[in-house]
């Protein structure tokens, strides 16, 4: 149950049971031990090598392309890969904002569902619920994309109109002229939230279910209600797990390609920047997916796309690093 953050969701567990070791007396000699150890180390090293090679590939391809870039790669908002005028500012904004909003929408729901399944629902319902959540995680993203654009978007337009009319004074909900039909960053965030919900729920459910019974019974024995027991025993115990699950979800949201490509309205060049969630745009992944097929035989344009991929790679690294820091610090508190 280890996550991409490298921290197992069960890391907070106390020592395994004190019973007799079931493996005792089943020794096969040292050969098996050495072979297995070697295989495990090989697998571990392979991951490191693969990540390093991906990084080297991205750097090697991106640096010459950035050198040919006619505008500032980091601060410019224009994106024209084939024309050698590309900057990542707008892509970075859209990618981060859509994913963060998706996370804000998904985490409370996920934690709620996980708590319901582990502490409120009767056993039979809990089992069915767990299976359904896992099933939701297995839906391909293209299905979410098509569902989002043909089913959710027309209905979600009304929600967005409401937000624009009543909360338009908040910059986040300001109406953007020229973007119609509900295909906005907010809409993408909602679909992304649905997509990452099952991951976060499934992992949170696992950790909540592992809360030591002694903690829970202790809280109840002290006269806590069920909600107080959850607040004092289950949530603190599960917090690192929930955080690492959220980061896993954020990772998926940041890299989501097809659903975003299908839903989000792309902007023409030269638009003024607006912080509104009612705007269109493109994320790193959707921009790459849209540009790559037709630019296969254009090395310069591919270089620009790979440079965008490099930034996404680094962004994901940063997100995971932050998650690790948070999880480590939390563990110090809870132990």
């Amino acid at each position, binding site marked *: 149950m280890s996550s991409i953050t490298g921290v197992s969701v069960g890391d907070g567990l106390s020592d395994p049971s004190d019973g007799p070791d079931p493996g005792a007396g089943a020794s096969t000699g040292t050969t098996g031990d050495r072979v297995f150890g070697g295989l495990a180390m090989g697998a571990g090293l392979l991951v490191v090598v693969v990540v390093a090679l991906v990084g080297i590939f991205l750097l090697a391809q991106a640096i010459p392309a950035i050198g040919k870039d006619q505008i500032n790669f980091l601060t410019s908002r224009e994106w*024209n*890969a*084939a*024309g050698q005028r590309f900057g990542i500012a707008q892509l970075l904004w859209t990618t981060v904002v859509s994913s963060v909003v998706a996370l804000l929408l998904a985490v409370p729901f996920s934690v709620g569902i996980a708590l319901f399944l582990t502490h409120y629902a009767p056993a039979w319902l809990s089992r069915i619920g767990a299976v359904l959540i896992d099933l939701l995680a297995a839906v391909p993203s293209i299905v979410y994309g098509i569902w989002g*654009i*043909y089913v959710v978007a*027309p209905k979600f337009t009304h929600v967005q109109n409401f937000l624009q009319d009543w909360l338009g004074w908040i910059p986040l909900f300001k109406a953007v002229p*020229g*973007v*119609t*039909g509900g*295909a906005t960053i907010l809409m993408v965030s909602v679909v992304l939230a649905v997509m990452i919900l099952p991951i976060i729920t499934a992992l949170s459910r696992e950790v909540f279910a592992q809360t030591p019974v002694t903690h829970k019974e202790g809280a109840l024995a002290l006269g806590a209600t069920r909600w107080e027991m959850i607040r004092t025993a289950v949530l603190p115990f599960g917090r690192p797990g929930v955080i690492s699950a959220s980061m896993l979800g954020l990772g998926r949201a940041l890299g989501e390609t097809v659903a975003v*490509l*299908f839903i989000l*309205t*792309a*902007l*023409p*060049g*030269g*638009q003024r920047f607006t912080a509104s969630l009612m705007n*269109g745009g*493109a994320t790193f992944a959707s921009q790459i*997916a*849209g*540009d790559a*097929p*037709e*630019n*296969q*035989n*254009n090395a310069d344009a591919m270089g620009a796309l790979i440079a965008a991929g490099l930034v996404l790679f680094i962004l994901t690294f940063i997100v995971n690093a932050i998650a690790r820091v948070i999880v480590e610090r939390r563990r110090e508190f809870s132990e």
Partner: protein
Amino acid sequence: MKITSIGRASGVAVAAALALSACGSSSNTGSTGSGSASGSGSSSSSSVAAGTKTADSSCFSGSLSGQGSTAQGNAMQLATTDFASKCSGAKVNYAPTSSGQGVTAFLAKQVGWAGSDSALNSEKGEPAKAAAACASPAWDLPMVVGPIAVAYNLKGVGKLTLTSTLIAKIFSGKITAWNDPAIAAANKGVKLPSTKISVFFRSDSSGTTDNFTNYMNTTDPTDWTAKHAKAWAGKVGQGKPKSAGVGSAVKATDGGITYVEWSYAITNNLTMAQVDNGGGAVALTAATASKAAEAAKIAGTGNDLKLKLDYATKAAGTYPIVLVTYEIVCSKYADATTGKGVKSFLSYLVSPEFQGKLSTVGSAPLPSAIQAKVVTAVNAIS
């Protein structure tokens, strides 16, 4: 441990050697086949009168794969199915990935031929690279005319005429409402509502965008100043992915307008504007689109039939916004089986039998003058 691994390695070497020798023998038998193939090709072309010249339509046996433009995807699907029922021993498949991918695969010798909505680009040195990959000059053979429809959705307006200037002004955002006097002037007797115009463009890089912006830049460079490109260079509009994306967006938006491959406009039931280049309003049909290719000049030399489309043509009854997809082939294939396959399949593509069916899949046939030239070129493939 060491001994067994050496043994295994030598086993691999033996297998590899066997595989290599197998390759060698198959290409030997192939080259003897090619002699007869080119012989029959030349005899058929000489025996038929020039006007109604047809290509050698004999079948080949084996498999052939091509890759490239999605614009001719539907046409190729029809062609490969028909060809399979005509020639039971031949298996042809075409992967509609993208023009860029098709050319890349062709240069890497992964496919027998590439489909592309633009000819090999000499600025990028593609003809030279292709010639190196083929070890013979590569030819661009125009095969399918893909009309680009200007599709719109406007309540109560079932017939609309747009001049080339109006198109450039609408897509560049200079005209923003449907009841603009300039649109009204071109549509006497049509009651235009004051609906806002919503422009939709392709958010993915696309040959359709390339050709459509080329049309606007050629016919009205003052209103559409940007040079043609696969990425949308306009300053207004909303981007949607693929033809399906822009098609469904226009369908869902009152006041929407877009440019889209004809076949998608048909399947999405979109209303299409008539285009007036100065020679009168022309509705998009297979015949009017085909005439646009007739107005094109041949820019290639010899059997390289690269076309230069005349977007600004004022010829009566010509629908000017079309793209032409090329089949990019080697003039002389190193592997004679592939050469025979390409020749046989392309002969079918250019045959009147297949060209006549193109309108059923939203494409238009080549005009007969170009058809005849393509036949000559196909017959010269070996």
